């Protein structure tokens, strides 16, 4: 009973938040609704017993991804109305429904088999975080290291792309030049 109430409550909230994200023309509303939706998705992870994933979801998305999006919003001045792609509605809805059903069929296809065995079964008595740590640092060690290198490359690429050819470099200018630049900008 508790699981049913929690599931339907968070399902309604998540669908509402993400519906706001894709329909609003205000970037700030979309960002706020997206952050709220991420919190509600972590609730599903906690309901399903994936405690570690729930905590990672909250930390990574609401703490890091939303901060980057907020920076992007301020940088790009998206307080203006955003334009929409007014394509054929029926094509969009048809392709969307077809793709979504296809994803679920792909996920559900192995379930009809009768020979399903767990690669890394959950152990009774051990907590979810302990199980995740054990599997992550033994069976999935190589993908873990590859993901770490990928994140490092993404961080360096982001810094280089954004920092290249900056208009002014405050560390190379003297204070007099900084004051002159401020006067020019403010005038």
């Amino acid at each position, binding site marked *: *009973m508790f699981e049913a109430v929690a*599931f339907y409550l968070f399902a309604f909230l998540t*669908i509402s938040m*993400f*519906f706001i*994200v*894709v329909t609003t023309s205000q*970037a700030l509303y*979309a960002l706020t609704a997206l952050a709220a939706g991420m919190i509600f*998705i972590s609730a*599903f992870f906690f309901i*399903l017993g*994936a405690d570690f*994933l729930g905590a990672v*979801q909250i930390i990574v*998305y609401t703490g*890091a*991804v939303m901060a*980057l*999006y907020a*920076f*992007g*919003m301020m*940088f*790009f001045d*998206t307080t203006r109305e*955003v*334009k*929409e*792609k007014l394509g054929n509605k029926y094509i*969009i*809805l048809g*392709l*969307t*429904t077809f*793709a*979504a059903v296809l*994803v*679920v069929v792909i*996920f559900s296809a192995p*379930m009809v088999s009768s020979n*399903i065995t*767990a*690669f*890394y*079964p*959950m152990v009774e008595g051990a907590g979810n975080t302990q*199980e*995740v740590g054990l*599997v*992550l640092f033994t069976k999935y060690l190589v*993908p873990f290291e590859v993901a770490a290198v*990928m*994140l490092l490359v993404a*961080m360096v690429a*982001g810094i*280089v*792309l*954004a920092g*290249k050819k900056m208009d002014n470099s405050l560390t190379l200018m003297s204070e007099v030049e900084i004051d002159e630049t401020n006067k020019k900008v403010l005038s």
Partner: protein
Amino acid sequence: MMEIGLNHYLVLSTILFAIGLVGVMKRKNLLLLFFATEILLNSVNIAFAAISHYYGDLTGQMFAFFVIAIAASELAVGLGLLIVWFKRHGTIDLDTMTSMRG
């Protein structure tokens, strides 16, 4: 109705994936396009976690964990590219990206 099973989570994942896909096809602003792609990735994560729970297999949670890592790196590089584009063209509208110049 009262017993939540695997099918409920898969239906929820379908609905969220459909919402994200509508957003991807509808938006012309690239920043809001990134918002919609985040919805797509997270809806698939729900399906991974649900199947992991109902089959007692940790592989699904591992996949969801790595999907989150890929989403974070995609966002970092994507925003960097957006900043470069904004500096050159002053807008992040999709219409300005329909032609490639050498």
